[in-house]
């Protein structure tokens, strides 16, 4: 049975539209996540459902009755709200506050009955705050206070619970405990939960459906897997994110990547020889630093291959779990010849990918600056009975730069980019020197030149 039906709702603050044509319907046991960036209308949607902000257009039906035609008390028996923040004017005890949740069930001059106390005790035990019963609310910590507020909402014995970023002030353990509790009620007692989340992973873990708002409109709605995709996240939040299913929790998890830095393009391309995940972090970092990146040879399904796909990095690929063939090796060499620098990561070598090491050697021989990251000693990752070790030694003798980790690599790369700049400046100066009108500045230029 549909419990709450929001149909074509439009809300405004003054003349500014904050919600437009929002519709959703929920039934008992639904746990709906409301996602969206700041100012997308998430809180406004909750406000219109909780009768704080009457919509200009559209209807909100609670059990098929217009919620705005009901009395406050009757709505409060069915719908409870946990706001973002509560400031409490006077210093009531935690128990007093939870018992206030019983207000809709009490008559005007009725005092709290044994039944009200039983409900309060139940929800306070659920939220693990019974031991705080007699403590004044303003002496509690943020997490404890929020539990009291949630207990008060539950004391209303609602059918629908609206949560507006209820976990903002809670640590991770508190977050999980509270959400597990709410989820439990949702499953067991068919409580409807509508919750605004900022954390995709919490949303993914608990919601079974979601709506994603963008500028007051529904951008995506439906099952969680349909809504929480990297395309939608990019479209609404303008953030790249990796969306995967976690093997342990079996829920979707989202890893947002920092927004692409608008760093100046260095017009310098780097070819990564990597594999087995050794190049994954480096790809993102180098892209952020403004280099253009290529990679190879990588087996399809290799971690580095998937990262490269995600980051749209050109790759020379080999079939899954297959040794590198002569053909792909050639393709890789072709790719290397177009790069201005080659980086070899601390990838383990077997006979299947030994050719990658030869490719690096070829790069050095062609005079392309080559860096070798030696985070893990070659002895530990050489599965070729010494062949790889020998090749690496040859690399060193032919002038490849060995660095110990990613940071050292980056600083070396910067230096080599600086060197390029200086070389270019020298050339420019030399050319300028030839121009007669520039002669007057010669001494000045020479002075500068000494400093370099």
């Amino acid at each position, binding site marked *: 049975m549909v419990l709450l039906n929001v149909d074509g709702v439009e809300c405004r603050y003054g003349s500014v539209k904050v919600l437009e044509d929002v519709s959703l319907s929920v039934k008992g046991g639904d746990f709906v996540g409301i996602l969206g960036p700041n100012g997308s209308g998430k809180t406004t949607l909750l406000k219109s459902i909780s009768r704080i902000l009457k919509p200009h257009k559209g209807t909100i039906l609670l059990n098929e009755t217009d919620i705005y035609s009901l009395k406050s008390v009757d709505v409060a028996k069915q719908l409870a709200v946990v706001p973002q923040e509560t400031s409490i004017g006077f210093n009531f005890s935690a128990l007093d506050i939870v018992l206030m949740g019983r207000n809709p069930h009490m008559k005007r001059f009725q005092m709290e009955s044994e039944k009200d106390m039983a409900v309060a005790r139940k929800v306070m035990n659920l939220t693990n705050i019974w031991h705080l019963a*007699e403590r004044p609310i303003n002496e509690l910590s943020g997490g404890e206070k929020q539990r009291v507020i949630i207990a008060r909402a539950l004391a209303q014995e609602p059918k629908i619970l609206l949560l507006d970023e209820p976990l903002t002030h809670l640590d991770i353990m508190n977050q999980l405990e509270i959400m597990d509790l709410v989820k439990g009620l949702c499953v067991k007692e068919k409580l409807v939960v509508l919750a605004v989340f900022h954390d995709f992973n919490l949303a993914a873990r608990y919601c079974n459906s979601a709506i994603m708002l963008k500028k007051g409109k529904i951008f995506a709605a439906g099952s969680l897997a349909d809504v929480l995709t990297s395309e939608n996240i990019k479209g609404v939040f303008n953030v790249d994110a990796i969306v995967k299913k976690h093997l342990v929790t079996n829920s979707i998890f989202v890893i947002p990547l920092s927004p692409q830095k608008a760093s100046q393009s260095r017009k310098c391309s780097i070819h990564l020889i990597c594999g087995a995940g050794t190049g994954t972090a480096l790809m993102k970092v180098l892209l952020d630093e403004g280099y253009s990146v290529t990679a190879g040879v990588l087996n399809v399904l290799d971690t580095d291959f998937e990262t490269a796909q995600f980051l749209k990095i050109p790759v020379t690929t080999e079939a899954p779990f297959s040794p590198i063939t002569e053909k792909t090796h050639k393709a890789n060499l072709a790719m290397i010849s177009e790069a201005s620098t080659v980086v070899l990561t601390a990838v383990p070598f077997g006979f299947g990918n030994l050719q990658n090491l030869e490719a690096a050697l070829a790069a050095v021989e062609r005079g392309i600056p080559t860096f070798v990251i030696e985070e893990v000693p070659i002895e530990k990752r050489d599965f070729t009975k010494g062949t790889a070790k020998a090749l690496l030694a040859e690399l060193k003798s032919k002038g490849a730069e060995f660095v110990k980790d990613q940071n050292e690599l980056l600083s070396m790369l910067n230096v080599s980019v600086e060197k390029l700049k200086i070389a270019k400046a020298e050339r420019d100066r030399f050319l300028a020197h030839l121009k007669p009108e520039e002669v007057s500045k010669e001494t000045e230029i020479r002075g500068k030149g000494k400093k370099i």
Partner: protein
Amino acid sequence: MSTAEVESTFFRRTSRWKLIVLLLVLALIIAVIVSLNVGYAQIPFPDILSIIGKHIPFLGNFIDSSLISPQNAAIILQIRLPRILAGILVGAALAAAGVLYQGVFKNPMADSYVLGVSAGAAVGASLSILSGVGFVFFGLRLVQVAAFFGAISAMFLVYNISRVGSRVPVTTLLLCGIAVNFFLFAIVGLLEVIAGDELHAIVFWLVGGFSNVLWKDIWAVLPFIIIGVVAAYFYVRDLNLLAMGEETAHHLGVNVERAKQILLVLASLLTAAAVSICGLVGFVGLMIPHLTRVVIGPDHRILLPTSTIIGAIFLVICDDLARVVATPFVSTRELPVGIITMLFGAPFFIFLFKKKKQSYAA
């Protein structure tokens, strides 16, 4: 503490509340009896008892008052008793109004001044004093009627200025109230400047006092104050919920706008009734609810009745002091009670506040 203990403590609260109210009523009765003894004329205590006793139905038949001088009887019945009753009524009304204002505004600084109610009364009273008309309205002096209507009109003015659509946000209410308050007191200032010989009367009214209280004044305000306090009691739980914030109160089933409207009208009615008989007595409305909250706790179900009674006791005692303290010094034989409430009440409050600051800080 075990579950059972917590719950039994909680349920014992109701009986504890009843006990507190009973003790306070007892204290009020004692204060009244003591106050009957306070005054310029020395009247023996047994005489006072028999003068009062004579007028209690049934009991009066057994009391022989033939030996008591009619002059003393007149002092007790026509001067001291109405004064004490006025003290009770005004103290109760101002303290109850203070509880309502502070509850609605969720702000411990709120009192009858913030909505311009006191200022409205002051303008009404000053104008009527200046008019010099001894006009009597159903046996009441013009000053009283003018103060009452001045207060009520100021409240409606502020309320209507602050209205945004169908809502009256507390912040706008506070700001408009303060603005109107300043405006009206400016008018009072202007009237004082041009008052000439009447200045004394205006100044006296502005600090408040009970020197001219008559029985008919009591009868005139009694219904307003009883209705105000009783009606306010219907909304005590709503006041508790309003302390959670208006949105939360709304989510918990309170019709916030209507509750606010009714509570503000009641508070203003109580204030208007109180100031109409005694002028602007300060401090009671602001501090008594505070003081009671420090001792009793924030629950309005007990805060409202206890504040009301404590306000009554406080003002009766202050009026005693007003009569006694000044006798040797001042030609008028008494100080206006408004000076006493502030002069003695404020340091006492600060003392109490300092002691309990830890638990009181929000």
